[in-house]
């Protein structure tokens, strides 16, 4: 399994043709206390760079973009009851949705962990 990062602060774990998407620890820190997450419907088609989810803190709402194109296969229902999971475990239990990759080639150009660390340090 490989983890990639986007410059919009999403992470994506890829395992064969399947992937899991969430937002990074840095992103949750910037947003503050998360109060609500709007997730895509199962079966929805998302396109790379397109809006896939919305994450809300008390004073801000931010779009979460799909790191790659694909079809949504699962959404993390646990976030409905407890959106604070995004704060406490952003890169684990606080995942957003899973998808089937449409084109593995789109992973090219995403960052690996080291590159993302360097990117965040530059902000």
């Amino acid at each position, binding site marked *: 399994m490989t983890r990639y990062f986007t410059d919009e602060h999403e992470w994506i774990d890829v395992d064969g043709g399947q992937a899991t998407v969430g937002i990074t620890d840095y992103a949750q820190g910037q947003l503050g206390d998360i*109060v609500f997450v709007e997730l895509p419907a199962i079966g929805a088609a998302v396109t790379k760079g397109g809006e896939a989810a919305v994450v*809300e803190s*008390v*004073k*801000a*709402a931010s779009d979460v973009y799909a790191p790659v194109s694909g079809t949504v296969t699962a959404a993390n229902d646990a976030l409905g009851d407890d959106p604070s999971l995004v704060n406490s475990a952003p890169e684990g239990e606080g995942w957003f949705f899973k998808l089937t990759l449409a084109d593995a080639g789109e992973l090219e150009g995403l960052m690996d962990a080291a590159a993302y660390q360097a990117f965040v340090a530059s902000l």
Partner: protein
Amino acid sequence: MRYLPLTQGDRAEMLARIGATSIDDLFIDVPADARRDGPIAGLPPHASEMAVERHLTKLARQNLVAGEVPFFLGAGAYRHHVPASVDHLIQRGEFLTAYTPYQPEIAQGTLQMLFEFQTQVARLFGCDVANASMYDGSTACWEAISMARRVTKKARAVISNGLHPHYVSVATTMARFTGDQLVTATPDLAAEADSARVIAEIDSQTSCVVVQYPDILGRIPDLRPIAEAAHAQGALLIAVVTEPVALGLIRSPGELGADIVVGEGQSLGVGLQFGGPYLGLFACKEKFVRQMPGRLCGETVDADGKRGFVLTLSTREQHIRREKATSNICTNSGLCALAFNIHLTLLGGSGLEKLARLNHGRALAAAARLAQVPGVRLVNASFFNEFTIELPKEARPVVRALAERDVLGGVSLGRLYPGAEALGNGLVVAVTETASEDDIETFAVALQEVLA
């Protein structure tokens, strides 16, 4: 000038502190050709309290005051007695001259009142949640149609022909720009509402069905079969209540299956005011709360653990979502919500029921009496405090002739539906607790004379 505290001495001292030689120095960013050197021409100078009062009083006297004559107008605005304490309390400066409660530590009065108001509206409408008010019933109705589009991702709204024509006009104005399709129809002088037509129009592309309860002619449709038909096609039922006092006696729309209930709250606490400001009411099922427009007040605790209230779920709103907001509104109708809240508190559930019974009783008596006037026919099978009669001639001139005799005798359908000839003889008559038995008799006698 009585509202301006600065003296010439103050002004000079302040300009010196700023480092300006004259007030004109502070307006240097205005292009020279747009600066006005003196007061704008053609407008009078300042005036004393006494002079202003004299002028306004003169204008006020040129109007026929509802409370001074037999009065039977409704059609979306109802005259009810408002207890004296309501107007006293809303004029307390801490309510009247406060701002939207963005700083909750020093706005608990307004916030607690809004929380109480939301609870009252939700209970009255039979819904899970309600917002902190909208501009008026007509705009709340459009916001509900718009919300149904967001919830269902469909954009075809089936509108009952009993929906207030102004409400239909407002929705039509907006739909022209948003692309919503509105399926509308003009009412006819039928005893029953158009439930059968509405149900037949619902299809798989329908986002919502909008039904007024009681409707513009005063008829009371059974919402249950409409709700069932709408839900079967994945559409929402929006019920519109323009006379909330009716709900003291008839079942709530939420209980009958409505998903969103909106209304005009002017009947309680607000008064007629020639059409505004009024009070938009908005309630819905809990599962739709994040698609709801308008301000919401919620309960929480402070740093000491004490209960308190804040504006919440504000990420739906324009100041955060900007072009993705659920609505562009920021002001609600706070002071009118307070008046509604106080009036309903003074009534309580028992008082509201008594008031509603009194209204229905007076309306029954008036309907019976007017139906005795030769040539007059009662249209409605059902009604609460408002019904439609058919006259033997066009109603609009009759209304004007009645006004000449100092009787304000209802709203002609010709005024509401210009050009709809089949409705021209229709007259909508509202009878609240403010209409005495004498008023009803005076109206009936005057109507008979005018028709003769």
